[in-house]
Protein backbone atom coordinates (compact mmCIF):
# COMPACT_ATOMS: atom_id res chain seq x y z
CA UNK A 1 0.00 0.00 0.00
CA UNK A 2 2.79 2.34 1.02
CA UNK A 3 4.67 1.46 -2.15
CA UNK A 4 1.54 2.09 -4.20
CA UNK A 5 1.11 5.58 -2.69
CA UNK A 6 4.79 6.30 -3.18
CA UNK A 7 4.53 5.37 -6.85
CA UNK A 8 1.67 7.78 -7.52
CA UNK A 9 3.29 10.61 -5.55
CA UNK A 10 6.40 10.06 -7.60
CA UNK A 11 4.36 10.05 -10.80
CA UNK A 12 2.96 13.47 -9.85
CA UNK A 13 6.37 14.94 -9.05
CA UNK A 14 7.98 13.67 -12.23
CA UNK A 15 5.19 13.88 -14.83
CA UNK A 16 2.54 16.15 -13.34
CA UNK A 17 -0.12 13.43 -13.55
CA UNK A 18 -1.86 13.92 -10.24
CA UNK A 19 -3.74 10.80 -9.11
CA UNK A 20 -4.19 12.34 -5.67
CA UNK A 21 -6.76 9.72 -4.62
CA UNK A 22 -4.05 7.07 -4.46
CA UNK A 23 -1.64 8.85 -2.14
CA UNK A 24 -3.60 11.22 0.09
CA UNK A 25 -5.65 9.62 2.84
CA UNK A 26 -8.45 12.21 2.88
CA UNK A 27 -9.02 12.08 -0.87
CA UNK A 28 -8.70 8.31 -0.88
CA UNK A 29 -11.42 7.98 1.77
CA UNK A 30 -13.62 10.39 -0.13
CA UNK A 31 -13.10 8.44 -3.31
CA UNK A 32 -13.95 5.10 -1.68
CA UNK A 33 -17.05 6.64 -0.10
CA UNK A 34 -18.16 7.98 -3.48
CA UNK A 35 -17.60 4.59 -5.06
CA UNK A 36 -19.61 2.86 -2.37
CA UNK A 37 -22.51 5.33 -2.62
CA UNK A 38 -22.53 4.88 -6.40
CA UNK A 39 -22.69 1.12 -6.12
CA UNK A 40 -25.50 1.30 -3.56
CA UNK A 41 -27.37 3.80 -5.72
CA UNK A 42 -27.02 1.64 -8.83
CA UNK A 43 -28.09 -1.51 -7.03
CA UNK A 44 -31.10 0.11 -5.37
CA UNK A 45 -32.40 1.83 -8.49
CA UNK A 46 -31.89 -1.29 -10.65
CA UNK A 47 -33.91 -3.32 -8.17
CA UNK A 48 -36.61 -0.68 -7.85
CA UNK A 49 -36.95 -0.31 -11.62
CA UNK A 50 -37.32 -4.09 -12.02
CA UNK A 51 -40.07 -4.20 -9.40
CA UNK A 52 -41.83 -1.28 -11.11
CA UNK A 53 -41.50 -3.06 -14.46
CA UNK A 54 -42.84 -6.35 -13.11
CA UNK A 55 -45.88 -4.80 -11.46
CA UNK A 56 -46.47 -2.38 -14.33
CA UNK A 57 -46.45 -5.10 -16.98
CA UNK A 58 -49.00 -7.04 -14.97
CA UNK A 59 -51.18 -3.96 -14.49
CA UNK A 60 -51.11 -3.30 -18.23
CA UNK A 61 -53.10 -6.43 -18.83
CA UNK A 62 -55.42 -5.94 -15.87
CA UNK A 63 -59.19 -6.01 -16.21
CA UNK A 64 -59.60 -2.68 -14.40
CA UNK A 65 -59.65 0.19 -16.84
CA UNK A 66 -58.38 2.68 -14.23
CA UNK A 67 -55.30 0.57 -13.62
CA UNK A 68 -54.59 0.26 -17.34
CA UNK A 69 -54.99 3.97 -18.02
CA UNK A 70 -53.01 4.79 -14.91
CA UNK A 71 -50.05 2.73 -16.06
CA UNK A 72 -50.23 4.15 -19.60
CA UNK A 73 -50.19 7.68 -18.15
CA UNK A 74 -47.22 6.83 -15.95
CA UNK A 75 -45.25 5.48 -18.91
CA UNK A 76 -45.96 8.55 -21.03
CA UNK A 77 -45.03 10.91 -18.20
CA UNK A 78 -41.73 9.27 -17.35
CA UNK A 79 -40.67 8.38 -20.86
CA UNK A 80 -41.35 11.84 -22.21
CA UNK A 81 -39.43 13.94 -19.66
CA UNK A 82 -35.66 14.12 -19.19
CA UNK A 83 -34.37 12.12 -16.22
CA UNK A 84 -32.45 15.12 -14.86
CA UNK A 85 -35.64 17.17 -14.74
CA UNK A 86 -37.34 14.30 -12.94
CA UNK A 87 -34.61 14.10 -10.31
CA UNK A 88 -34.71 17.84 -9.64
CA UNK A 89 -38.52 17.74 -9.56
CA UNK A 90 -38.63 14.88 -7.09
CA UNK A 91 -36.04 16.43 -4.79
CA UNK A 92 -37.00 20.09 -4.83
CA UNK A 93 -40.77 19.82 -5.29
CA UNK A 94 -41.94 16.51 -3.86
CA UNK A 95 -39.16 16.64 -1.27
CA UNK A 96 -40.77 19.74 0.23
CA UNK A 97 -44.26 18.27 0.23
CA UNK A 98 -43.30 15.10 2.07
CA UNK A 99 -43.10 15.06 5.86
CA UNK A 100 -39.88 16.01 7.61
CA UNK A 101 -38.80 16.78 11.14
CA UNK A 102 -36.70 19.57 12.63
CA UNK A 103 -33.24 18.37 13.64
CA UNK A 104 -32.04 21.58 15.28
CA UNK A 105 -32.24 24.31 12.66
CA UNK A 106 -32.59 22.15 9.61
CA UNK A 107 -35.22 19.83 8.21
CA UNK A 108 -34.53 16.16 7.80
CA UNK A 109 -36.93 14.49 5.40
CA UNK A 110 -37.99 10.89 5.84
CA UNK A 111 -36.71 10.54 2.31
CA UNK A 112 -33.31 12.15 1.74
CA UNK A 113 -31.53 13.01 -1.49
CA UNK A 114 -30.31 9.41 -1.90
CA UNK A 115 -33.86 8.12 -1.52
CA UNK A 116 -35.22 10.60 -4.04
CA UNK A 117 -32.54 9.63 -6.51
CA UNK A 118 -33.47 5.95 -6.18
CA UNK A 119 -37.18 6.70 -6.53
CA UNK A 120 -36.88 8.99 -9.55
CA UNK A 121 -34.30 6.84 -11.36
CA UNK A 122 -36.29 3.71 -10.54
CA UNK A 123 -39.48 5.18 -11.95
CA UNK A 124 -37.63 6.50 -14.99
CA UNK A 125 -36.08 3.16 -15.92
CA UNK A 126 -39.20 1.35 -14.67
CA UNK A 127 -41.31 3.02 -17.37
CA UNK A 128 -39.04 1.48 -20.00
CA UNK A 129 -38.97 -1.85 -18.18
CA UNK A 130 -42.78 -2.06 -18.32
CA UNK A 131 -42.69 -1.77 -22.10
CA UNK A 132 -39.81 -4.23 -22.33
CA UNK A 133 -41.67 -6.80 -20.23
CA UNK A 134 -44.80 -6.22 -22.32
CA UNK A 135 -42.88 -7.14 -25.46
CA UNK A 136 -41.92 -10.38 -23.76
CA UNK A 137 -45.43 -11.09 -22.55
CA UNK A 138 -46.84 -10.57 -26.01
CA UNK A 139 -44.35 -13.12 -27.31
CA UNK A 140 -45.80 -15.85 -25.08
CA UNK A 141 -48.06 -17.94 -27.34
CA UNK A 142 -51.79 -17.73 -26.75
CA UNK A 143 -51.91 -21.54 -26.55
CA UNK A 144 -49.57 -21.54 -23.55
CA UNK A 145 -51.78 -19.00 -21.84
CA UNK A 146 -54.86 -21.11 -22.53
CA UNK A 147 -53.12 -24.22 -21.33
CA UNK A 148 -52.37 -22.53 -18.01
CA UNK A 149 -55.98 -21.45 -17.78
CA UNK A 150 -57.15 -24.99 -18.49
CA UNK A 151 -54.97 -26.22 -15.64
CA UNK A 152 -56.91 -23.96 -13.31
CA UNK A 153 -54.42 -21.09 -12.88
CA UNK A 154 -55.91 -17.74 -11.91
CA UNK A 155 -54.84 -14.69 -13.92
CA UNK A 156 -52.30 -13.57 -11.32
CA UNK A 157 -50.94 -17.05 -10.70
CA UNK A 158 -50.50 -17.80 -14.39
CA UNK A 159 -48.69 -14.42 -14.72
CA UNK A 160 -46.29 -15.30 -11.91
CA UNK A 161 -45.72 -18.99 -12.69
CA UNK A 162 -46.11 -19.33 -16.43
CA UNK A 163 -46.24 -16.14 -18.48
CA UNK A 164 -43.66 -13.96 -16.73
CA UNK A 165 -40.92 -16.61 -16.55
CA UNK A 166 -41.26 -17.19 -20.30
CA UNK A 167 -41.63 -13.50 -21.11
CA UNK A 168 -38.60 -12.65 -19.01
CA UNK A 169 -36.36 -14.90 -21.09
CA UNK A 170 -37.53 -13.31 -24.29
CA UNK A 171 -36.98 -9.74 -23.17
CA UNK A 172 -33.66 -10.18 -21.33
CA UNK A 173 -31.49 -8.66 -24.12
CA UNK A 174 -33.66 -5.54 -24.25
CA UNK A 175 -33.75 -5.37 -20.47
CA UNK A 176 -29.99 -5.65 -20.45
CA UNK A 177 -29.77 -2.53 -22.58
CA UNK A 178 -32.06 -0.56 -20.35
CA UNK A 179 -30.25 -1.53 -17.16
CA UNK A 180 -26.89 -0.50 -18.63
CA UNK A 181 -28.49 2.80 -19.50
CA UNK A 182 -29.85 3.20 -15.99
CA UNK A 183 -26.43 2.47 -14.50
CA UNK A 184 -24.99 5.38 -16.47
CA UNK A 185 -27.93 7.65 -15.71
CA UNK A 186 -27.26 7.38 -11.96
CA UNK A 187 -24.50 9.97 -12.42
CA UNK A 188 -27.27 12.58 -12.70
CA UNK A 189 -27.82 12.22 -8.97
CA UNK A 190 -24.91 14.64 -8.52
CA UNK A 191 -27.46 17.37 -9.33
CA UNK A 192 -29.19 16.88 -5.99
CA UNK A 193 -25.93 16.46 -4.09
CA UNK A 194 -25.95 12.69 -3.68
CA UNK A 195 -22.26 12.09 -2.92
CA UNK A 196 -21.83 9.41 -5.60
CA UNK A 197 -18.87 8.92 -7.90
CA UNK A 198 -19.52 11.82 -10.28
CA UNK A 199 -20.12 14.26 -7.42
CA UNK A 200 -17.05 13.09 -5.55
CA UNK A 201 -14.83 13.21 -8.63
CA UNK A 202 -16.03 16.75 -9.35
CA UNK A 203 -15.18 17.86 -5.81
CA UNK A 204 -11.78 16.14 -5.92
CA UNK A 205 -10.79 17.68 -9.25
CA UNK A 206 -11.95 21.09 -8.06
CA UNK A 207 -9.81 20.84 -4.93
CA UNK A 208 -6.74 19.40 -6.64
CA UNK A 209 -7.01 20.81 -10.15
CA UNK A 210 -6.54 17.37 -11.69
CA UNK A 211 -9.49 17.26 -14.08
CA UNK A 212 -7.99 14.99 -16.74
CA UNK A 213 -6.77 12.46 -14.19
CA UNK A 214 -10.12 12.22 -12.42
CA UNK A 215 -11.90 11.97 -15.78
CA UNK A 216 -9.77 8.94 -16.60
CA UNK A 217 -10.57 7.39 -13.21
CA UNK A 218 -14.27 8.12 -13.71
CA UNK A 219 -14.18 6.59 -17.16
CA UNK A 220 -12.48 3.42 -15.99
CA UNK A 221 -14.85 3.12 -13.05
CA UNK A 222 -17.97 3.17 -15.21
CA UNK A 223 -16.50 0.97 -17.93
CA UNK A 224 -15.68 -1.54 -15.20
CA UNK A 225 -19.12 -1.38 -13.60
CA UNK A 226 -20.94 -1.79 -16.89
CA UNK A 227 -18.67 -4.71 -17.77
CA UNK A 228 -19.54 -6.43 -14.50
CA UNK A 229 -23.26 -5.85 -15.03
CA UNK A 230 -23.24 -7.06 -18.62
CA UNK A 231 -21.17 -10.11 -17.69
CA UNK A 232 -23.61 -10.99 -14.93
CA UNK A 233 -26.63 -10.53 -17.18
CA UNK A 234 -25.12 -12.71 -19.91
CA UNK A 235 -24.35 -15.42 -17.40
CA UNK A 236 -27.94 -15.23 -16.19
CA UNK A 237 -29.28 -15.34 -19.72
CA UNK A 238 -27.31 -18.49 -20.46
CA UNK A 239 -28.35 -20.15 -17.25
CA UNK A 240 -32.03 -19.54 -17.84
CA UNK A 241 -32.01 -20.77 -21.40
CA UNK A 242 -34.70 -23.38 -22.03
CA UNK A 243 -33.69 -25.80 -24.78
CA UNK A 244 -35.94 -25.37 -27.79
CA UNK A 245 -37.46 -22.10 -26.58
CA UNK A 246 -36.53 -18.64 -27.79
Amino acid at each position, binding site marked *: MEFFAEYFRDLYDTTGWNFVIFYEQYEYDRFLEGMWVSIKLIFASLLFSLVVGFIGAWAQGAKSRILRYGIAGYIQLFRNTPPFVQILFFYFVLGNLTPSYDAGGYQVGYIESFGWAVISLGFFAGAFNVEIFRSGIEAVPESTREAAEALGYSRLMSYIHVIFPLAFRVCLPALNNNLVNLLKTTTLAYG*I*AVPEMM*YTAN*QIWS*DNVNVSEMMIVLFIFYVGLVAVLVYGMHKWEKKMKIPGYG
Partner: protein
Amino acid sequence: MKQSIKSLVHTALCAIVLASFALTATQANAANDRFMKVMERGKLVVGVKADYKPWGYRDSNGKLVGMEIDMAQDVADALGVKLELVPVQSSNRMQFLQQGKIDLMIATMSDRSDRRKIVGIPEPNYYTSGTNLLAKKGLIKQWSDLKGKPVCGKQGAFYNKIVAKRYGAKVVAFVNNAESKQALRDGKCVGWVYDDSSIGSDLASGQWEGYEMPLNSEDDNPWGLAVPLDEMNGIWGNLMAGMQYRWLISGRLMELEKKWGIQPTAFLQTQAEKLTPARKHLK
Protein backbone atom coordinates in the same frame (compact mmCIF):
# COMPACT_ATOMS: atom_id res chain seq x y z
CA MET B 1 -10.03 -13.73 -26.91
CA LYS B 2 -6.50 -13.22 -25.72
CA GLN B 3 -5.65 -11.48 -28.96
CA SER B 4 -8.58 -9.07 -28.65
CA ILE B 5 -7.66 -8.11 -25.08
CA LYS B 6 -4.14 -7.48 -26.24
CA SER B 7 -5.29 -5.22 -29.05
CA LEU B 8 -7.67 -3.44 -26.66
CA VAL B 9 -4.84 -2.70 -24.26
CA HIS B 10 -2.75 -1.59 -27.19
CA THR B 11 -5.41 0.87 -28.39
CA ALA B 12 -5.87 2.24 -24.87
CA LEU B 13 -2.14 2.81 -24.48
CA CYS B 14 -1.94 4.54 -27.85
CA ALA B 15 -4.80 6.83 -26.85
CA ILE B 16 -3.06 7.82 -23.62
CA VAL B 17 0.24 8.49 -25.36
CA LEU B 18 -1.50 10.58 -28.02
CA ALA B 19 -3.39 12.53 -25.37
CA SER B 20 -0.20 13.33 -23.52
CA PHE B 21 1.42 14.49 -26.76
CA ALA B 22 -1.50 16.81 -27.38
CA LEU B 23 -1.10 18.17 -23.86
CA THR B 24 2.57 18.96 -24.16
CA ALA B 25 2.09 20.40 -27.64
CA THR B 26 -0.33 23.07 -26.42
CA GLN B 27 1.95 23.89 -23.52
CA ALA B 28 4.95 24.40 -25.76
CA ASN B 29 3.35 27.17 -27.80
CA ALA B 30 5.48 30.28 -27.95
CA ALA B 31 4.62 33.28 -25.77
CA ASN B 32 2.85 36.34 -27.17
CA ASP B 33 0.67 34.20 -29.45
CA ARG B 34 -2.33 35.26 -27.48
CA PHE B 35 -1.79 38.97 -27.91
CA MET B 36 -1.19 38.63 -31.65
CA LYS B 37 -4.27 36.48 -32.04
CA VAL B 38 -6.51 38.92 -30.18
CA MET B 39 -5.31 41.87 -32.24
CA GLU B 40 -5.64 39.91 -35.47
CA ARG B 41 -9.19 38.84 -34.92
CA GLY B 42 -10.11 42.21 -33.38
CA LYS B 43 -11.93 40.49 -30.56
CA LEU B 44 -11.09 39.67 -26.95
CA VAL B 45 -12.72 36.56 -25.48
CA VAL B 46 -13.07 36.70 -21.70
CA GLY B 47 -14.37 33.98 -19.39
CA VAL B 48 -16.65 35.43 -16.70
CA LYS B 49 -19.15 34.19 -14.15
CA ALA B 50 -22.84 34.13 -15.00
CA ASP B 51 -24.17 33.22 -11.57
CA TYR B 52 -22.22 35.43 -9.21
CA LYS B 53 -24.13 38.60 -8.55
CA PRO B 54 -22.99 41.35 -8.78
CA TRP B 55 -19.57 40.37 -10.19
CA GLY B 56 -20.91 38.47 -13.15
CA TYR B 57 -24.55 37.58 -13.73
CA ARG B 58 -27.37 37.83 -16.25
CA ASP B 59 -29.70 40.83 -16.04
CA SER B 60 -33.42 40.56 -16.75
CA ASN B 61 -32.71 40.63 -20.50
CA GLY B 62 -30.32 37.71 -20.23
CA LYS B 63 -27.29 39.91 -20.88
CA LEU B 64 -24.10 39.26 -18.91
CA VAL B 65 -23.38 42.22 -16.64
CA GLY B 66 -21.44 42.95 -13.47
CA MET B 67 -18.28 44.38 -12.02
CA GLU B 68 -15.97 41.88 -13.70
CA ILE B 69 -17.75 42.33 -17.03
CA ASP B 70 -16.98 46.05 -16.76
CA MET B 71 -13.36 45.17 -16.08
CA ALA B 72 -13.29 42.94 -19.16
CA GLN B 73 -14.71 45.83 -21.16
CA ASP B 74 -11.90 48.06 -19.83
CA VAL B 75 -9.34 45.59 -21.16
CA ALA B 76 -11.04 45.41 -24.56
CA ASP B 77 -11.19 49.20 -24.71
CA ALA B 78 -7.49 49.50 -23.85
CA LEU B 79 -6.66 47.12 -26.72
CA GLY B 80 -9.19 48.75 -29.03
CA VAL B 81 -10.95 45.47 -29.83
CA LYS B 82 -14.45 44.05 -29.44
CA LEU B 83 -15.40 42.05 -26.37
CA GLU B 84 -16.92 38.59 -26.31
CA LEU B 85 -18.01 37.07 -23.02
CA VAL B 86 -18.04 33.34 -22.27
CA PRO B 87 -19.78 32.18 -19.09
CA VAL B 88 -17.60 29.78 -17.08
CA GLN B 89 -18.10 27.73 -13.92
CA SER B 90 -15.87 27.46 -10.89
CA SER B 91 -15.20 23.83 -11.69
CA ASN B 92 -14.17 24.32 -15.33
CA ARG B 93 -12.85 27.88 -15.66
CA MET B 94 -9.16 26.96 -15.71
CA GLN B 95 -9.71 24.35 -18.42
CA PHE B 96 -11.34 26.98 -20.64
CA LEU B 97 -8.14 28.97 -20.43
CA GLN B 98 -5.85 25.96 -20.79
CA GLN B 99 -7.62 24.81 -23.93
CA GLY B 100 -7.47 28.26 -25.49
CA LYS B 101 -11.24 28.72 -25.54
CA ILE B 102 -10.84 32.07 -23.79
CA ASP B 103 -8.01 34.63 -23.85
CA LEU B 104 -8.48 35.86 -20.33
CA MET B 105 -10.39 34.78 -17.26
CA ILE B 106 -11.89 37.21 -14.78
CA ALA B 107 -14.13 34.93 -12.79
CA THR B 108 -13.97 35.62 -9.03
CA MET B 109 -11.16 33.12 -8.70
CA SER B 110 -9.20 32.88 -5.47
CA ASP B 111 -5.47 33.09 -6.08
CA ARG B 112 -4.03 29.84 -4.73
CA SER B 113 -0.67 28.20 -5.21
CA ASP B 114 -2.02 25.00 -6.75
CA ARG B 115 -3.90 27.11 -9.31
CA ARG B 116 -0.74 28.99 -10.21
CA LYS B 117 0.63 25.70 -11.52
CA ILE B 118 -2.20 25.56 -14.06
CA VAL B 119 -2.78 29.16 -15.12
CA GLY B 120 -0.83 32.42 -14.97
CA ILE B 121 -2.06 34.80 -12.29
CA PRO B 122 -0.43 38.23 -12.69
CA GLU B 123 -0.21 40.51 -9.68
CA PRO B 124 -1.33 42.83 -8.10
CA ASN B 125 -4.52 41.03 -7.04
CA TYR B 126 -7.61 43.06 -7.81
CA TYR B 127 -9.92 41.93 -5.03
CA THR B 128 -10.20 39.75 -1.97
CA SER B 129 -12.78 37.80 -0.06
CA GLY B 130 -13.09 35.36 2.83
CA THR B 131 -15.34 32.46 3.63
CA ASN B 132 -18.52 33.02 5.58
CA LEU B 133 -21.98 31.63 6.07
CA LEU B 134 -25.51 32.72 5.22
CA ALA B 135 -27.83 31.32 7.88
CA LYS B 136 -31.14 31.92 9.61
CA LYS B 137 -30.82 34.55 12.35
CA GLY B 138 -29.65 33.24 15.71
CA LEU B 139 -29.03 29.68 14.53
CA ILE B 140 -25.24 29.62 14.19
CA LYS B 141 -22.92 31.59 16.47
CA GLN B 142 -19.49 30.18 15.72
CA TRP B 143 -17.82 27.96 13.16
CA SER B 144 -17.75 25.01 15.55
CA ASP B 145 -21.57 25.02 15.63
CA LEU B 146 -21.44 23.46 12.18
CA LYS B 147 -20.07 20.14 13.42
CA GLY B 148 -22.06 17.22 12.05
CA LYS B 149 -24.66 19.48 10.43
CA PRO B 150 -25.49 19.77 6.75
CA VAL B 151 -24.12 22.92 5.15
CA CYS B 152 -25.08 23.86 1.60
CA GLY B 153 -22.36 24.83 -0.82
CA LYS B 154 -21.47 25.04 -4.45
CA GLN B 155 -19.62 22.30 -6.30
CA GLY B 156 -16.08 23.35 -7.09
CA ALA B 157 -15.53 25.85 -4.27
CA PHE B 158 -12.24 25.23 -2.46
CA TYR B 159 -13.63 25.97 1.02
CA ASN B 160 -16.07 23.04 0.89
CA LYS B 161 -13.16 20.80 1.81
CA ILE B 162 -11.85 23.23 4.44
CA VAL B 163 -15.21 23.54 6.21
CA ALA B 164 -15.64 19.77 6.13
CA LYS B 165 -12.13 19.06 7.38
CA ARG B 166 -11.72 21.85 9.93
CA TYR B 167 -15.19 21.95 11.45
CA GLY B 168 -16.64 18.56 10.61
CA ALA B 169 -19.56 20.03 8.67
CA LYS B 170 -21.37 17.83 6.18
CA VAL B 171 -21.11 19.80 2.97
CA VAL B 172 -24.01 19.31 0.58
CA ALA B 173 -22.80 20.88 -2.65
CA PHE B 174 -25.03 21.66 -5.62
CA VAL B 175 -24.18 22.49 -9.21
CA ASN B 176 -25.31 26.13 -9.11
CA ASN B 177 -25.83 28.77 -6.48
CA ALA B 178 -29.53 28.94 -7.30
CA GLU B 179 -30.01 25.33 -6.22
CA SER B 180 -27.91 25.64 -3.07
CA LYS B 181 -29.76 28.78 -2.01
CA GLN B 182 -33.08 27.04 -2.68
CA ALA B 183 -31.94 24.14 -0.51
CA LEU B 184 -31.09 26.65 2.24
CA ARG B 185 -34.53 28.25 1.98
CA ASP B 186 -36.12 24.81 2.11
CA GLY B 187 -34.25 24.22 5.35
CA LYS B 188 -32.25 21.32 3.96
CA CYS B 189 -29.11 22.74 5.59
CA VAL B 190 -28.23 25.10 8.44
CA GLY B 191 -26.38 27.55 6.23
CA TRP B 192 -24.83 28.29 2.88
CA VAL B 193 -21.05 28.55 2.84
CA TYR B 194 -19.70 31.04 0.34
CA ASP B 195 -17.67 34.22 -0.22
CA ASP B 196 -18.41 36.91 2.34
CA SER B 197 -18.55 39.59 -0.35
CA SER B 198 -21.20 37.70 -2.30
CA ILE B 199 -23.24 36.94 0.81
CA GLY B 200 -23.00 40.63 1.74
CA SER B 201 -24.54 41.67 -1.54
CA ASP B 202 -27.24 39.01 -1.21
CA LEU B 203 -28.21 40.37 2.20
CA ALA B 204 -28.18 43.92 0.82
CA SER B 205 -30.53 42.88 -1.98
CA GLY B 206 -33.37 42.52 0.53
CA GLN B 207 -34.29 39.01 -0.58
CA TRP B 208 -32.95 37.40 2.56
CA GLU B 209 -35.13 38.80 5.32
CA GLY B 210 -34.51 36.90 8.56
CA TYR B 211 -31.08 35.66 7.49
CA GLU B 212 -27.65 36.88 8.57
CA MET B 213 -23.92 36.41 8.06
CA PRO B 214 -23.08 35.41 11.63
CA LEU B 215 -19.43 34.34 11.60
CA ASN B 216 -16.02 35.93 11.36
CA SER B 217 -14.78 35.53 7.82
CA GLU B 218 -12.01 32.99 7.47
CA ASP B 219 -9.28 32.31 4.98
CA ASP B 220 -9.27 35.77 3.51
CA ASN B 221 -7.89 35.16 0.07
CA PRO B 222 -7.04 37.57 -2.74
CA TRP B 223 -8.67 37.04 -6.12
CA GLY B 224 -6.72 36.73 -9.31
CA LEU B 225 -7.58 37.10 -12.94
CA ALA B 226 -5.80 34.60 -15.12
CA VAL B 227 -3.94 34.34 -18.41
CA PRO B 228 -2.59 31.17 -20.06
CA LEU B 229 0.43 29.93 -18.10
CA ASP B 230 2.91 30.24 -20.97
CA GLU B 231 1.80 33.83 -21.66
CA MET B 232 2.46 34.88 -18.09
CA ASN B 233 5.85 36.48 -18.76
CA GLY B 234 5.04 37.79 -22.22
CA ILE B 235 2.98 40.73 -23.37
CA TRP B 236 -0.26 39.21 -22.19
CA GLY B 237 0.69 38.67 -18.54
CA ASN B 238 2.44 42.02 -18.32
CA LEU B 239 -0.51 43.80 -19.91
CA MET B 240 -2.86 42.38 -17.29
CA ALA B 241 -0.47 43.23 -14.45
CA GLY B 242 -0.49 46.79 -15.74
CA MET B 243 -4.27 46.85 -16.08
CA GLN B 244 -4.68 45.73 -12.49
CA TYR B 245 -2.13 48.23 -11.22
CA ARG B 246 -3.93 51.08 -12.95
CA TRP B 247 -7.35 49.89 -11.78
CA LEU B 248 -6.11 49.90 -8.19
CA ILE B 249 -4.35 53.27 -8.08
CA SER B 250 -6.89 55.15 -10.18
CA GLY B 251 -9.75 54.23 -7.87
CA ARG B 252 -11.59 52.60 -10.80
CA LEU B 253 -12.35 49.46 -8.81
CA MET B 254 -13.80 51.47 -5.92
CA GLU B 255 -15.93 53.26 -8.45
CA LEU B 256 -17.17 49.93 -9.83
CA GLU B 257 -17.78 48.62 -6.32
CA LYS B 258 -20.07 51.58 -5.76
CA LYS B 259 -21.76 51.17 -9.14
CA TRP B 260 -22.66 47.54 -8.42
CA GLY B 261 -23.75 48.13 -4.83
CA ILE B 262 -20.96 46.09 -3.24
CA GLN B 263 -20.06 46.88 0.35
CA PRO B 264 -16.78 48.83 0.20
CA THR B 265 -13.86 46.71 1.34
CA ALA B 266 -10.80 47.94 3.18
CA PHE B 267 -8.67 45.95 0.73
CA LEU B 268 -9.06 48.36 -2.19
CA GLN B 269 -8.26 51.36 0.02
CA THR B 270 -5.07 49.89 1.44
CA GLN B 271 -3.98 48.55 -1.94
CA ALA B 272 -4.40 51.99 -3.49
CA GLU B 273 -2.34 53.59 -0.74
CA LYS B 274 0.34 50.95 -0.92
CA LEU B 275 0.73 51.07 -4.69
CA THR B 276 0.44 54.79 -5.35
CA PRO B 277 3.93 56.17 -6.13
CA ALA B 278 5.24 59.02 -4.01
CA ARG B 279 5.99 61.24 -7.05
CA LYS B 280 7.97 63.64 -4.86
CA HIS B 281 10.61 64.04 -7.56
CA LEU B 282 8.03 65.55 -9.87
CA LYS B 283 7.33 68.61 -7.79
